[in-house]
């Protein structure tokens, strides 16, 4: 398998990458979504701009309230990061479940987000985490909530010429618990349904809930129906069971030879329940 011919350019900075991102050019970070597609010649860019060596994009740092994960940080780097483990343990654990060792060694969070595979893990995880995605373009930088970033089947809010630079994740607090459960497609091991949950507790009740879902529909989303059934309810298994029944409500489940719409909808309920129970 050999990709079609293309030009390769390596950017030393985000500014240089922006200047190189002309028509028919695409960004290359870990390349673990892009290069497989190019080998199958499903994607034939004229130029690849390699941003994987821009140091600034590879850092994982913290501010008082947030973790800042550079877009070119690899899944493996995030899984192993002491900062992420300390402040958002479920993201580190979730990163450790992406693909295999080799995918985690090369694949990046920014690449996964830009690719926006509806079955990828990061979208649901970051939606639940309340993360914001930072992008830079010729007009400057902007941030979008993760749930607003994913707009459709392999479609995002990223504009032509924009580069994802970082993900800003609120640090978790002592009154919060989180989990990620996925039911994997047996061949690809991508999620048929993946559900990430962050619950904030107050006095035995759920004060706030965030539930991110991937795999079920054409893009990852914040499950507001489940959230509504959780907030201000007692934090117990009955609440989880009842709320999980709302999973996938109003969504059109995808269908393939591993999971019909009906079965996917069932999985959404089961996986949501399990993710919720893991937080209780």
């Amino acid at each position: 398998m050999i990709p079609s011919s293309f030009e390769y350019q390596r950017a030393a900075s985000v500014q240089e990458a922006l200047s190189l991102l002309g028509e028919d050019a695409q960004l290359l970070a870990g390349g673990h979504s892009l290069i497989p597609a190019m080998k199958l010649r499903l994607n034939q860019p004229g130029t690849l701009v390699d941003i994987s060596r821009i140091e600034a994009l590879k850092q994982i740092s913290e501010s008082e309230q947030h973790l800042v994960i550079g877009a070119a940080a690899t899944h493996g780097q995030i899984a192993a990061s002491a900062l992420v483990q300390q402040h958002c343990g479920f993201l580190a654990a979730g990163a450790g479940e992406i693909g295999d060792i080799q995918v985690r060694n090369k694949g990046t969070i920014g690449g996964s987000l830009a690719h926006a595979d509806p079955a990828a893990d990061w979208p649901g995880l970051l939606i639940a985490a309340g993360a914001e995605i930072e992008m830079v373009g010729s007009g400057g930088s902007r941030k979008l909530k993760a749930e607003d970033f994913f707009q459709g089947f392999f479609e995002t809010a990223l504009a032509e010429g924009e580069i994802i630079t970082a993900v800003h994740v609120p640090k978790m607090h002592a009154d919060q618990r989180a989990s990620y459960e996925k039911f994997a497609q047996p061949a690809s091991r991508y999620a048929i349904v993946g559900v990430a949950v962050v619950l904030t507790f107050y006095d035995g009740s759920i004060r706030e809930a965030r539930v991110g879902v991937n795999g079920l529909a054409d893009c990852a989303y914040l499950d507001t129906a489940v959230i509504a059934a959780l907030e201000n309810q007692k934090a117990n298994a009955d609440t989880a069971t009842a709320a999980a029944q709302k999973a996938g409500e109003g969504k059109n489940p995808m269908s393939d030879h591993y999971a019909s719409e009906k079965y996917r909808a069932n999985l959404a309920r089961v996986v949501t329940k399990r993710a919720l129970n893991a937080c209780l």
Partner: protein
Amino acid sequence: MAHQISLTVNGKQQQLEVEARDLLVDVLREKCRLTGTHVGCDTSSCGACVVEVDGLSVKSCTLTAVQADGGSVLTVEGLAGSDGLHPIQEGFKEEHGLQCGFCTPGMIMTAKDLLARNPNPTEHEIREALEGNFCRCTGYHNIVRSIQYAAAKMRGETPVSAS
């Protein structure tokens, strides 16, 4: 457009002329004539092509050579010193962890990455670590034993062979 790249392959620095689209696996096999690294699939799934780049295992079919420019590549050919087999290779031999041998180099390189992170993995951890490596011959049973053997040896213990 041709690119001049510099790669340290199994400890030897090499200057290579590659096209942007040349995958690392093809450069290793065709330009460096290191054919121990294999191509088993089109979808980054099977792991027959796993090599180490800058200390981490990667699927060399999913990386262009130019991406690895300046890096250090270790293939199965470079694993053993002059004194015979690396403990992982020895484990595969002692525990019959290979049959046709095609997946073996990739298995070994993944095992190396695993054992670098986790010198004493459980059977479950070994099986999970092999998620990206397919073997059609062994049913994985003896591959697991092979890695357990290697792990013990690399920890300085005397491996207990199952066979």
